[in-house]
């Protein structure tokens, strides 16, 4: 991103510059990506993240994030956490967990997939997008760290198998079942700072491959804010040093079934859709260093035994 600025002759300066800027980019997270309560996502701002836990009997959780973001950041904020594989690093999403679901347990569990090698195409988290106005899912052609969702779009992660083109194993829910329906933010929280708001689509413009069910744009009836939304309106990220601590630091967010919003799409048969409020990260246990010390001692013991035996053999020879 920076080398384009450097002239060919100033290689050293460019390298130094690239080093500093890259260091800056590495330490500081890109500004703007923040978790939001679900009511902050509208048809034209914020991104809805939906994760389908129905493979393990759970609901579809959906939450909201501000837009200059990547699919990976969206999935690693507000209580969401992912695990990569040992082979591909964190960029390959192998496990997903939400601190409000089963205490932050990540799925698939280590017993189901050890996440050492790339998971098989028959059982992995596949990544789907629906741009604003579209009611069909697009299989992501980019990884979660590279894809930048548009404002007003929906990101969905489902667990299962697909073929390489993504024509099989499509999600059973439609984007409209998950999409934010309100045109204005609700819930009383701050308006998401959105620098790249896409122009709202004029009615009748076809953006995708034949959307069968265009989103119902009815700004007259915003969904009534559910009682829990007002409580958890301010996101409570665990590690951010916010000057004003929220009055109710709720590590276990109260998830409200969005069936109360009265949208006809949600009432359709299928997995339950539950709003996941921004929550604190699930506690991570670093573990104890005792096993490492024990192994070191054991290794030393074995080494000493070998050296002793070798010395004795040399002496007797």
């Amino acid at each position: 991103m920076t080398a384009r600025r450097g002239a060919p002759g100033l290689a050293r300066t460019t390298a130094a510059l690239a080093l500093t800027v890259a260091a800056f980019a590495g330490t500081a997270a890109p500004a703007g990506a923040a978790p939001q309560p679900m009511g902050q996502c509208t048809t034209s701002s914020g991104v809805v993240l939906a994760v389908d836990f129905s493979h393990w009997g759970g609901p579809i959780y959906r939450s909201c994030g501000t837009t200059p973001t990547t699919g990976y950041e969206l999935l690693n904020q507000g209580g969401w956490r992912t695990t990569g594989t040992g082979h591909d690093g964190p960029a390959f999403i192998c496990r997903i967990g939400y601190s409000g679901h089963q205490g932050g347990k990540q799925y698939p569990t280590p017993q189901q997939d050890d996440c050492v090698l790339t998971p098989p195409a028959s059982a992995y988290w596949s990544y789907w997008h629906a741009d604003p106005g579209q009611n069909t899912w697009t299989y992501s052609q980019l990884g979660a760290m590279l894809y930048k969702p548009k404002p007003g779009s929906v990101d969905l992660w489902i667990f299962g198998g697909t073929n390489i083109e993504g024509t099989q194993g499509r999600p059973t829910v439609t984007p409209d079942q998950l999409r934010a329906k309100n045109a204005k933010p609700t819930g009383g929280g701050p308006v998401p700072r959105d620098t790249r708001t896409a122009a709202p689509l004029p009615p009748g413009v076809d953006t995708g491959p034949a959307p069968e069910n265009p989103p119902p744009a009815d700004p007259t009836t915003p969904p009534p804010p559910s009682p829990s939304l007002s409580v958890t309106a301010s996101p409570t990220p665990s590690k951010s040093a916010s000057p004003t601590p929220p009055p109710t630091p709720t590590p276990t967010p109260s998830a409200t079934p969005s069936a109360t919003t009265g949208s006809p799409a949600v009432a359709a048969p299928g997995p339950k859709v539950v709003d996941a409020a921004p929550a604190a990260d699930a506690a991570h246990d670093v573990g104890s260093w005792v096993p490492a010390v024990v192994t070191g001692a054991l290794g030393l013991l074995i080494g000493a035994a070998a050296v002793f035996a070798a010395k004795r053999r040399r002496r007797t020879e």
Partner: protein
Amino acid sequence: MSRTSAATARSSAPGLAPDAGGRRLPRTLHPVAWWIWALALATAVSRTNNPLLLFLVLAVLGYVITMRRTEAPWARGFKYYLYLALTVVAIRVVFRAVFATGITPHDHFLFSLPHLPTPDWYAGIQIGGPVSLEALLSAATDGLRLACMLCCIGAANTLANPKRALRVLPGALYELGVAVTVSISVAPQLVQSVQRVHRARRLRAGRSKGLRALRGIIVPVLEDALERSLRLAAAMDSRGYGRAGTATRRSRRTTGALMLLGMCGLCAGAYGLLDATAPMLLGFPALLAGGLLCVAGLRLGGRRITRTAYRPDPWRAAEWAVAGCGVLSAVLLFSNAGFNAAELNPSIYPLSWPTLPLVPAAAILLAGTAGFLAPPPSAPVRPGIPAQRTEEST
């Protein structure tokens, strides 16, 4: 291979070791026993990514090699395998740092490399950029696992006599005489050649360190190792290896067809087992059919070759014990009995201390008992030391 060793075991079962007054007579263990032990340990290593277990495997390998290696030239070569293992780890770490896999806000930032921008259509591969501690650690543990497997093979090459290992190959493989000989003996020969060339340079007061010396060593070493392997193959060829003998053209063709079909079946079966989307028929059935065809081909090929052994390698209790403890450790690691499978692959993202699961650690230590289950190697006969004294002292 197992067929041959089983036959050897049957033929030599009555010949028990003579009584040595409570002390075991020094002898060399059957090479196949060492190979089974080492391959089983390598299989066990492939199961785990836990650095503690991997270090334990390295310690066990070092212990067994110190205890039971002979004074033969190929038996001094373990350090070269260790260098190779270190190189593997270093290459993995460097590649992971250069071809960055991305950094997340939760990671521990270490340093940053100059970032080369890649065009949009080349998305997915980043060159340079920030490097996290987690990325380097995961690359190092991944490399360590490969390094451990390399060291297992190195241990087999160090402990087993390569020429005796060659003798127990199934008769049908003699058809491939030269290829098999070179492929099995090239690693021990390389080690020998490195030592010879190094010594020769030292005698001529040449430089034995540095990049210039490396060039002076590598070329003669490669030439020497390949030449010696070819010479060995030629020597074996002149003694009847790789000869069709009295076989008719038809039986030779049948053998060839059986072996080819069997190998195809084995490949298809392995593919079917590894790829979860492959049809079920391609998995175990293909593997089984391929294995059966291969066995039939080997039998047919081996039947027409008559071999006599001058000094057959016995397969006694010690061989069973060494091969058994290796296999048992692999079985324990794959059985998931008594431990949590997640402990074999501790998480790097987020960083946490690895645990030492008891059963796998005990399994690896069990493999280490080969260090005293195997009989001590016979002491070298050195000029100046009377043979009687050597026998008494060891």
